[in-house]
């Protein structure tokens, strides 16, 4: 063993200092600025869930628990409640008063959004779901509800798109036509 052998290893370290770095700051910041970009997921990436709203801000969720039923990881907990005329959260009779998704359990399989009969539950591309405690990873309804867009109003409030259920829903979509598509006639139409 020669006298300088033990310093030879430091040579590697020293040389590396002059090479371009591979590490990157995240989401942006120091290091290789060119690479310091947020990850862009595929458009149908299964990320955090979102509870959608009708155009007037009422919730689409009816508290039917089909998502909880479909969930293979038992990550969803829902309780339904009755809408009343002065406390209206969704346009119909029923709304989800409690909605929780436990992201420690969720496996992002998407069966819940397939089960959802009102398209209330969809998935976003949001994937940054790390936190410091277990409790914070149980997302409640407040965390999951979609943000209020312009023209939306925080429930509870009366139906703004029609006075009764029929008017409300038949006004959607604005074509005024019932949606007559079925899986079979779509297939026939495309083939």
């Amino acid at each position: 063993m020669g006298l300088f052998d033990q310093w030879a290893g430091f040579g590697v370290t020293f040389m590396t200092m002059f090479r371009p770095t591979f590490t990157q700051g995240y989401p942006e910041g120091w290091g290789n600025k060119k690479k310091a970009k947020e990850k862009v997921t595929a458009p149908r990436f299964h990320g955090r869930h979102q509870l959608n709203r009708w155009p007037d801000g009422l919730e689409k969720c009816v508290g039917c628990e089909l998502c909880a039923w479909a969930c293979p990881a038992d990550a969803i907990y829902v309780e339904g409640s009755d809408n009343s005329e002065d406390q209206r959260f969704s346009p119909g009779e029923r709304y989800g008063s409690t909605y929780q998704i436990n992201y420690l359990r969720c496996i992002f399989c998407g069966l819940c959004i397939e089960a959802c009969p009102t398209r209330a539950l969809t998935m976003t591309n949001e994937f940054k779901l790390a936190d410091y405690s277990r409790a914070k990873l149980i997302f409640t309804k407040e965390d999951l509800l979609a943000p209020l867009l312009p023209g939306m109003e925080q429930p509870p409030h009366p139906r703004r798109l029609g006075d009764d259920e029929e008017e409300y829903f038949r006004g959607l979509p604005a074509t005024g036509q019932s949606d007559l598509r079925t899986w079979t006639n779509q297939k026939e139409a495309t083939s």
Partner: protein
Amino acid sequence: MTVTAKDTGKDTSKDTSVEQAVDQVTLTIDGIEVSVPKGTLVIRAAERLGIAIPRFCDHPLLDPVGACRQCMVEVPDMGNGRGMPKPQASCTLEAMPGMKINTQLTSPVAEKAQAGMLELLLINHPLDCPICDKGGECPLQNQTMSNGYGESRYGGVKRTFPKPVPISAQVLLDRERCVLCARCTRFSEQISGDPFIALVERGALQQVGVYAEHPYDSYFSGNVIQICPVGALTSADYRFQARPFDLVSTTTSCEHCASGCQLRTDHRHYQVKRRLAGADPEVNEEWNCDIGRFAFVYGRLHDRVTMPLLREDGVLRPASWPEAIDAVVVGLKAAGSQVGVLTGGRLTVEAAYAYQRFARTVLGTNNIDFRARVASAEEEQFLASTVAGVALDRSVTYADLDRAGKVVLVGLEPEEESPIIFLRLRKAVRKRKLPVVAVAPLLSNGNAKLSATLVQTAPAGEADALAALPDVDAGTVVLLGERLAGVPGALSAAVALADRTGARLAWVPRRAGEVGAIEAGCLPTLLPGGRLVADGAARVDAGSTWGVSSLSAEPGLDVNGMLGAASDETLKALVVSGAEIGDFADPVSARDAFEHVGFLVSIENRLSDIAARANVVLPAALLEEQTGTFLDWEHRPRRVDRVNKELRSPMTDIRILAALSDALGSDLGFRNAVQAAAELAELSGWDGNRAEVPAFAASDDTITPDGLRLATWRQLIDDSRHNDGADELMETAPAPVARFSTATAARAGITEGEPVTVGTDRGQLTYLAVLDDTVVDGVVWVPSRAPGQNVAETLGARAGDPVTAKEGFAS
């Protein structure tokens, strides 16, 4: 045998042993031969082979109607060699010899007919499944999946109705979802006899309608929610509370009355969400009453006791268990044997037995009584001689009511006081015209539905009426209500009547735990199993089981004696469990007794009038948190299973008593219900001396021509504490009315529909006057405990006492 097999599916299986070889019919279903009793419906015959034909309207306990047309089968041979040209409804088709039936399993015709029916039913059925309470346990959903087409061909606009419409405070109707099976209307007409709902309109607009001026306030309205095969009738109370897959079901028994219904209790996260009628063909068939179904929230109100409470400087403060038990020990030791135990009438047999043993072997006293109500020495003797120690095989049962030649009701309003007896009687009245005789001051609505013959009897005149009752023979069953305790000589007259004619007697209490308490020995003169305290051999027998050398032979005080002794402070301590001051014969003097007693221990679920006066309050587990057994009025054991495994108060009555016994330096002998039941079983089958039957004279107090007497009894939905929190249920409580005959009303200047004030020198209560000519002249009937109106407390009067009545409000 008049009950034919087509009545019910259950009867079919029960009756075959009797009717074997006489009336068997052999037919072929899907190529399989099956023999069934004559009169069996094809749909039931198929069930015997395990072939499920889809159905909505068919219900084994309701008359066949063929309304939904879902159960179509192909009939290639009617048994006469000719086939039916079109598919037939198997729920209205009686089995014939040599008949051939092809169900959907073998016949494409039947399969297509059934699928087509489902498609038609679904044309106007809204896609409400996600928001419908039936979703997940819905016969329409299930049968569409198993027998329907995958897709609808209907593209038009569905018929809509405003929804939901409340047909009563408890039942919500959604007419869009209705498939017009008429189960609910048939139930209300055939079973409960309250036809307040009916099918109205025609064609696509046909719907279940309710009389505009009458809401559907039946005592049995909850059953229509359970039998609705779609989500058209839903419960206001359970609305959106849970989904079927959230619920954990427990089979248990109802704690409210002595009918002994089996229940299915469903809980979600340890909170009971709903209760359904269990299916027990021998007892409640598939029905229960609204109390059993809806009154279950009383245990989760703000007044639930979860920690022991100890009185310090006049105020109850929370204490630890050891501290509270020490305080009880000090108090009970100071009282010595000058102590009484009142157990209420709502305990399981095991708990009642524990109280009894605690009183006799730990406290060394016979001062124990379960009767927190009107009670008499005559009743005690009657219970000891006639009710105690009777096993199920010797007692009158529901089946005996089905078979009876005649049923006499004395001091009992079945619909108000034991609803399942009412349903059984009504079934017998409807199917085979069972004669029912009511010895009562008026023909109540319930007895009118039984087509009962009224033997008009002034209140407190039941004894004379029984003595003079004509046409009673060995086929007669006499049902005696607990109210007869307040009528001197009535129970003696009933025993004499049974003796004279061979009629069978059954005593029907109101509370679920009363028969069990009698068997457990919760009476001052009675040891478990009908043994008498006065009988040396019985004391030795019980003492040897309990491992004590001697038991006190001194007769104890009954409830009236204990309250009297407590008032004049000769009784130094009282241990009270599950009793209400308002239930005692005279609540005012009972309150006085609880005020005066030196040391009062209250073992309770909830804070009560008694707990508020107690020195120590010990929290006991709710019934849904413990196991045990009730004995119903037939003496049939009814199992109580633990529903809620997340205990807020982990101490059951038995564990509390065991802990107190340990602290008092004694041993209760068991620490849980299973051990208590085993010990009680050792004491069953006593064949020694029994009590003499009572022979008390009737009071010769006759009604004066101008005086007004009080007739009163409790109604099913009234001011009971177990109804607390069941707001929808309480909204269906009958309006508080006072009933008079026209003559009495004219004499007293009372007009129908006007307020009338009934009073005594103690107080006054106001009711709405109703004229009813079945009421005995000179009598006013009022409900005992209409919400906020306690007759015993305010008027200080019981049935038979003189009262005054005048039009107008209380002055």
